[in-house]
Structure formats: structure tokens, C-alpha cells
């Protein structure tokens, strides 16, 4: 019992961080699946979502601020795609990637300008910010909610992709971009929808993340974004269940390593894992082994 009380916090933190990485990783993996683009701005959209709540909560009640944040974030994701990626769709992939890095810096520097570079305190969200005790270990309620909410959202997303028309269009587009256009799929709608879903999940992820770790700084999106990207590659980029499982594995391993006392190496571990995976299994855990079309 004593052993559980001592070690449960690490595991809970791991699962909860894993869930938050998973919600971000889905955005990476879906966009990659369809456009073959690593959307580097994704982590910064996550940061903007945090800032929107910080500023919105000062002028309106929190139950309006949260839906507003989700709408603003989704709109931002949609606009980024329309403005920075769509005009480059026929350009070489490298150009879109550079454009994505550009968007990432634009968002970071805008945030730096708006906040003056100082950390902003994320408001406490009623109920989910409350402290609870599980088997002698004290934590915030959000830690327990995160994995459940993540699983529910992922199941919902998988259903959407398997059983709806837009889902079918997404699957077709990810299989063969040009042919699906010939088959009458409105590719722009599919791509926009992908960005909307991805940023929606990142918005939820940011809500959960910042409730636990309450400081929002302009570069706060960089680390979670990078780790979520590693999770997506680890699980096999393009695969949604892969991204989710990869994210949970990374979140849990990271916290177990911290629990063992090697705190200094927890980040190094994440990136070492990425290298090992790429050498041993370049397509990741669930990656499709399809022969490339090009």
C-alpha cells in the first residue's frame, strides 16, 4: 500500500501527460496522413489556445471563455491552412514545411509581443482544477479525466473516419491524393476538415495541459509539440491509434524515468527513443508498409 501511494503519482502524471500528448499527436498524424506535411505550427496553435483562455477569462465567465477558445483555435487552424499551406499545395514539400516553420515563429513572436514575454497564469477551471485523493496520492481531478476524455475523443474520431462520408473521403485522400480528386472528392473540404479536427483536439489538449501546468509562455508549445510529434512517429505517422499509443508510452516512460531519479535524462530519453525506433522500425509501431507512389 505504501509502495502504491509513493509511486502512483508518477504513473498518474504519466498517463495524464500521455493523454495530452495524444490529443496533440493526432493533429500531426492526420495532417501527415493526408498532405504528407509535418505541421510545425501545431504546437504553437496549442499555445495560442492557452493564451486565449487567459485573456478571455479576465472579461467573461469561464463557461463562455472555454467554448470561445475552442472556436477561436479551430478558426486559427483553418486559417493557417488556407493562408500558409493551400497556395503551396503543388509546390515541393520542402516549401510547405518551411512555410509551417514560418507560421510557428510568427505565432510565437506574436505571443511574445502580446504577453510582453512574461508567463501568464492560466485561470483555475471549476471542478476539474479541484484536488482529489486517490489511494493516498493527492492530485488534481484533471489528471484522472484526461485519459478518459482522450479515449472517448479518439473512439469518436475513429468512428467518424470509419462510418461517415467525410471520413471515407479522408481515407481515400490519404490513400491517393490525385485519384481521389478524380473520383469527385472535394479535396479542399477534406483538408480543411482535417485541420479543424486536429486543432479542435489540440484545443482540448491545451485546456487539460494548462489546467495542470498553469504557466503560459510564448514558447510553451514547443516541447509538448515536439514530444507529440515524436509520439506520432513512434506510433507510425499517419496512424491514429498508433499516435495515441505512442503518446501514452512516451508520457508514462518519461515519468517513470523521473521517478527512478534520472530526471536529467527524461527528455534525452524521448529523443533517443525516436532515433532507436527510426533505425529499428522506420515506419513506427503501426505504420503502413505501403510502397511509395512516387
Amino acid at each position, binding site marked *: 500500500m505504501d509502495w502504491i501511494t*509513493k509511486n502512483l*503519482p*508518477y504513473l498518474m*502524471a504519466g498517463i495524464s*501527460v500521455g493523454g495530452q500528448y495524444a490529443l496533440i499527436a493526432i493533429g500531426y498524424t492526420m495532417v501527415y496522413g493526408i498532405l*504528407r506535411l*509535418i505541421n*510545425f505550427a501545431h504546437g504553437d496553435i496549442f499555445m495560442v489556445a492557452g493564451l486565449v483562455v487567459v485573456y478571455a477569462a479576465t472579461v467573461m465567465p469561464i463557461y463562455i471563455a472555454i467554448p470561445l477558445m475552442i472556436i477561436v483555435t479551430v478558426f486559427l487552424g483553418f486559417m493557417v491552412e488556407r493562408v500558409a499551406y493551400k497556395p503551396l499545395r503543388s509546390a515541393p*514539400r*520542402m516549401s510547405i*514545411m518551411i512555410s509551417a*516553420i514560418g507560421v*510557428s*515563429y510568427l505565432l*510565437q*513572436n506574436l505571443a*511574445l509581443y502580446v504577453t*510582453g*514575454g*512574461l*508567463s501568464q*497564469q492560466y485561470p483555475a477551471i471549476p471542478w476539474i482544477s479541484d*484536488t482529489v485523493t486517490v489511494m493516498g*496520492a*493527492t*492530485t*488534481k481531478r484533471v489528471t484522472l479525466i484526461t485519459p478518459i476524455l482522450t479515449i472517448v475523443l479518439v473512439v469518436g474520431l475513429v468512428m467518424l473516419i470509419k462510418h461517415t462520408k467525410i471520413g471515407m473521403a479522408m481515407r481515400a485522400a490519404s490513400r491517393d491524393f490525385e485519384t481521389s480528386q478524380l473520383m469527385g472528392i472535394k479535396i479542399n473540404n477534406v483538408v480543411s476538415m482535417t485541420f479543424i479536427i486536429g486543432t479542435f483536439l489540440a484545443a482540448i489538449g491545451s485546456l487539460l495541459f494548462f489546467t*495542470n*501546468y*498553469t*504557466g503560459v*509562455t*510564448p*514558447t*510553451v508549445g*514547443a*516541447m509538448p509539440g*515536439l514530444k507529440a*510529434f515524436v509520439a506520432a*512517429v513512434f506510433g507510425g*505517422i499517419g496512424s491514429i491509434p498508433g499516435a495515441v499509443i505512442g503518446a501514452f508510452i512516451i508520457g508514462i516512460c518519461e*515519468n517513470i524515468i*523521473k*521517478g527512478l*531519479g534520472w*530526471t*536529467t535524462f527524461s*527528455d534525452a530519453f524521448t529523443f533517443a527513443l525516436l532515433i532507436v525506433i*527510426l533505425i529499428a522500425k*522506420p*515506419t513506427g509501431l503501426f505504420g503502413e508498409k505501403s510502397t*511509395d507512389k*512516387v
Partner: protein
Amino acid sequence: MKKRVLAVALAGVMAVSMLAGCSGGNGNTESNKDGAGTEAPAADGAKVVKIGVYEPASGDNGAGGKQEVLGMQYANKMTPTVEIGGEEYTVQLEIVDNESSNDKGPSAASSLVSAGVSVVLGSYGSGVSIAASDVFKDAGIPAIGVTCTNPQVTEGNKHYFRICFLDPFQGTVLANFANAEFSAKKAYILTKLGDDYSTGLGHYFKQAFEALGGEVVEEAFQEGNSDFTSYVTKAKNEGAEVFFAPVSTEAAALIIEQAAAQGLTVPLMAGDTWDSNVILNAAKGKDVQIYVTTFYQEGGNEEFDSGIKEWINSDSTAKANNGGDDTISAVTAMGYDAYYVALEALKAAGSTDAAAVNEALWGVTYTGVSGNIAFDDTNGDAMRDTAYVKCANTETGAWDFVTEQGVN
């Protein structure tokens, strides 16, 4: 093909992570942009002397840096002119942002050098001060450290001075206090990797605490870390009786949040950086005990207190830079004193020539709001022998004075 895509992606990731450090990218001079010292070179043809302000306005230490600058701006408003060699000079503050970054610091420092300043004040944060030290040295400009407490800032050089106490002193004071007040036998120390101030103070605390017969558990976290869950858990599991975290206020706010969430009952202790309203705001209404050592206790000088409060309340930019209220940070008082020390040096030098000011600084003595300031002959450190210990009142959101603590 796919491998190639991934290879490109990884190259991208590396590029992004390397660049992540320099995301700010605005280390340029923004002289006199924030309020106070906005007077242009006086219209009546009086001469101008420039004092460089090398402080962080963004990054980890942005909040503290801004508060330190407030003290200088207020002092500049109170005393905008100085008589040097029989002539009246208008003092102009040249403020640069070093972004709390050891990489950006030197370029911000260079912009001060090219602005032609006679003396530099700053920085908040020892790491950036050490990083810029050589730039000032090569240009022959003296610098006055305001609240950088790491010994290495002034050690072995003749141009960097300092008006505050040092970390070996502060670490000992904290260890003595932990031992006397809480009879603590086991301490948990959390420092930030690559931060000279943090690791230095952690080290001196450890030395002093072990010398008193205590036991120490040490851990460190990396730049950009925002998850302090496992560190707090570790401290609980190890049965530490004090949690010592000499870290920046950004990290401190997250640590306090986590400590409260996990119901950590032992006192949190830290050095001068935590003496900030960022900490008070983070701790307000939470069940945590916080003790810090600092340079100045509000109420120490009534005239200064009421004057600066009035100014902060009348100037919205100043108020925003002070974190939205009129609590006086110790660093603000120190910034105020630093400005007057610089003026004394200019007067003593009788010229605006940087080398002459450097020479004159050795002999400067000044009685400021934070106490007597005089420099020792070896490193140019102020001789200080007491620190104030304060405790955060989580109900009122203010600091309560606890005790004055010396080394013995």
C-alpha cells in the same frame, strides 16, 4: 521516398529545436520605451550622460527584470540630472532586453556599448551577467550588478561590481534558518540545469546544510520543463522537511501550484528571486508555506515606499511592469540604490569617461534604502552581513516579515 520525407522532417525538427532557444529575436535597444526616463536630451543644451540598463524584459526572468528596472526609472525620475566636474548633465537610461538568455545577452550588451554608455546596471540573473561580462570588459565599461548573487560575476575581474549579498552567504543564511526554525534534518533541493544562479545557490545551501549535520536530496530540471509533478512526489517520498528551490519565478509558480495540488506540507524555501508578487499571486488562497531571503523589506524606508507606490499607481505601464499591483519588490529597491551608486561614481570620477568611472567606483560609498553600500578591494562586492527572511501570507497575498538573519 518515405524515408526521405522522414529524414527531411527530422532535419526540420532539429532546426526547430535549435531555433527554439532564440524564439524571441528582439534583443534590440528599446531605449526609454517604457515610461519614466523619456525626457529627450534637454532642450537647454545641457549635456547628456548615458547609463546602460542591461536587464531581462522577457523570458524566464522577465518579471523580475522589469521590477528591477522600475526602481532605476523611479530613481531617474526623482534625480534626472547629475553634476559631473562642475557641469550639469542629464541622465539618460539606455534600456536593453537580454531576454534572460545567456546566448542573447552578449548582443544586447554590445548594443549598450555602441550606444556609448558610461556605466552599466544589471542584470537580474547571474547567468546573463556572467555571459555579458567580457563584452563590458573589452569595451572598458564598468558594470554594477544589482541582484546577481553568484560569486563568479565579480570574481577575478576589475570591472564588474555588485551591490547585493552573495550566494555563499545567502545559502548559509537559508540553511541556518531551515535548521533553526524548522529543525530540519533532511532537505530537498531542486535546481535548474545550466542556470548559474540556481545551481550555485543550491550548491552553497547544500554545503551549509550538510555542515550542520543535515541530509540532502538533489534533483535538477531542464529549460522549458513545465511538469513538476514528479519532483514534488520525490520530495514527499524522501520525507524531506524543507523543499529548497532557488529557481526563476516562472518555474516557481508551477512548483507552488503542484505542491498545493499534491498537498505538500513542508515549507518551500528560496532565495531572493522568489521575492516577487508573481509568487504571492501563485500562492494566494493555497495551502502552502513559503519562506524567502531578500535584500529589502517593505516598510524599511517610509519615504521611498510611499513615493514609489504613488508613482506606480499613477503610471499604468509601470503598474503593468510591476505585475499589476503596488507591492514593492526588493529588486526594485535595489535597482533604485544601484542608480544612485552609479551617480556617486560619476560624481567621484568627475567625467563621463568609462575608465574614470571604473576607477572611481572602488571608493564609492553610499547609504541607500537597502542599507550601506561599500565595495571590498578584491572583487568589488558590496560588504553585506544581514538578509531579511520573509514568509508569504496566503490569505492577504502579502509578505510577512519573519526575521533578520545573519551567518551566525
